[in-house]
């Protein structure tokens, strides 16, 4: 699963720490999600999407490798 959090953060001009605080996780977790090392739970994905005022599928999307 890939995501556009890094881009969305740049658009909104917030840091990883800001986003982490708003969704109630550590900065390391946001970093792991951005670098595709950790796949967030549905609840966390929805919370992140809410911060950017977008639908969850606009931020998170499946990759080819997820489909097999």
């Amino acid at each position: 699963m890939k995501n556009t959090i890094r881009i969305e953060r740049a658009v909104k001009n917030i840091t990883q720490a800001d986003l982490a605080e708003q969704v109630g996780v550590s900065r390391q977790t946001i970093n792991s999600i951005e670098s595709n090392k950790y796949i967030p739970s549905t609840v966390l994905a929805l919370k992140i999407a809410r911060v950017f005022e977008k639908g969850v599928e606009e931020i998170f999307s499946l990759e080819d490798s997820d489909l097999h």
Partner: protein
Amino acid sequence: MRTNYLFPFNSRYVGIGLVLLHVPIKLLWDSLYPKGDDYHDPTAENGGFLFSTPHLFFIGTTLMVLVGLFLIAFSKEKIEDEQIVQLRLDSLRWAIYLNYVILLFSLVFTHGGESNHILMLNIWLPLLFFILRFQWVLYKQKRSAKSDETRL
């Protein structure tokens, strides 16, 4: 948030204190009673009394280490989020794997009195391995987050 049955963050310091405190106490005891260990070995001469002082001392120090390791292993992180929960479970799985590999090896390659020592080792080995593995992945994660921060 669901209950996660973990100790408060600061209890890790109590745990570290207990593990460290056990070292000088054990050294002092060993220098006072060089053959003290015989007293909780039922096969040794004078041994076998369940509530003899040396045996109570042995129980006391073992409990100190165990409770200490337990508190270190199962205290909350500062921010106990879902990724930490996953890393914790992952480390626990590795600790159990390693423990059983060692158990199986010792089952095959030891016999008699030696197997008692293996049993003693198994009391604290899973906890110790869990702590080391968990802290190692946390350290690696923090380091990679930090290098990303300087890069961006």
